[in-house]
């Protein structure tokens, strides 16, 4: 059990450690704090978005021990000690990930609200399966709703990234 601190009003807070994008953050959270909110409000990682907050849209997707989950359905206390990757942790040494480059090149971003979750779902897919088929890409992002693009450019962008082609095809 993590350390518990009770304030003068009797509110309990738990001392937890979240390993986010390689950095260990030891923070105090209430038991009912949702992981999305802790990432955004306490750690200032606002790339993780909030849409439905009920597990339907995927805009809050983060990788928990490498696997995509809807962070709106995870209590921060449940993630104590675990590895979390948010969209802020996908680029390395100032360079965008191939998936990100490819999404820009393919005009796979319109309003951009779904994009962080989309990139993380794609990242998890390509880590596990570097050369996916189109149906595998579609399946991997099935939990990420996009209301703008119609998905076609997103799927093409992920396939292109997996094939080392980060410039757009002729449509």
């Amino acid at each position, binding site marked *: 059990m993590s350390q518990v601190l009770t304030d003068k009003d009797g509110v309990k807070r*738990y001392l937890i450690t979240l390993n986010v994008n390689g950095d260990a953050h030891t923070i105090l959270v209430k038991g*009912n704090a949702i992981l999305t909110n802790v990432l955004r409000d306490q750690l200032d990682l606002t790339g993780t978005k909030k849409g439905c*907050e009920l*597990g339907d849209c995927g805009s809050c997707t983060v990788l*928990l021990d490498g*696997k*995509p989950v809807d962070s709106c359905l995870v*209590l921060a206390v449940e993630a104590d000690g675990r590895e979390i990757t948010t969209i802020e942790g996908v680029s390395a040494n100032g360079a965008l990930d191939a998936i990100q480059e490819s999404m820009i090149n393919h005009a796979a971003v319109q309003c951009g609200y779904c994009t962080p979750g989309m990139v993380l779902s794609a990242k998890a897919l390509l880590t596990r399966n570097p050369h996916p088929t189109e149906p595998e890409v579609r399946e991997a992002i*099935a*939990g990420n709703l996009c209301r703008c693009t119609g998905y076609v450019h997103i799927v093409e962008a992920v396939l292109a990234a997996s094939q080392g082609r980060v410039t757009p095809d002729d449509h």
Partner: protein
Amino acid sequence: MYMPDFEYHTPRTLSEACALLAELGEKATVLAGGTDILHKMKVGKLAPEHLVSLKNLDEIREIRHEAGRGIVIGALTNHAAIYNSPLLQERYLSLPMAAHTMASTQICNLGTVGGNIVNGVPSADLPPILIALQATIRLVSASGERSMALEDFFCGAAETVIAPGELLTEITIPDQETTGSTYIKFGLRRSGALAVTGVAVSVCVEGDKLRDARIVLASAAPTVMRATAAEDFLRGRTISDEALAEAGTLAAAASRPRDSIRGSAEYRKNLAEVLTKRALRKAIDEGHV
């Protein structure tokens, strides 16, 4: 979104969890993957005083084969672990396939088989195929344990026989002679849609006859239900399209679906008939798929 307050507990072992649940009684709610509970808490349908997290109970998170018993699935196994399990894929592919029809990857990485069962809703996707595969479950509490057939666990709409203080620890698929099984789910979309109606079957084919069959319907009655009249009709019968069609008619006749946002009762009865016939044919011809 508003989240009610609660006391949070993280017992380190199964016995510690049982002791805690015995002490807290009705005030405690068990937290597994949280996909149902947190949803209910956010929409104001649930405000538990105590939330007892099972996250440390790795002892009930694995899938293994036990000689003489069958395949034992820990209640905390999530849907992704079920569909990625080589053991299940090899022996009863129908179960990984059923898990694969569920929600998005993000939900399948959180939601557990135990939560899917204890929730007790008739639209849950895993109980039908597990019942078709003759699964039994184990319930453990501070005062002892009991085992039962999974089908006996459900007793009404969102009602089960679990008592306060009890934990579902494992699901066992016994070694069996079935030659095929499958689950066909009809949802309004491929992704993230609950079953309008679903049918799971298992069959034991012997020559040109069906020695035995199990037919289990999802979202076709207040609880997951076995279509026993259809099963009785098929037992010992020569396999033919007519016989399978008759089984479909009998299964639909026994179903008691309701009108809901996902489909009318009439439509669901129709689905039960067609899906039963199709599922039987598939399991007979293709094995555990």
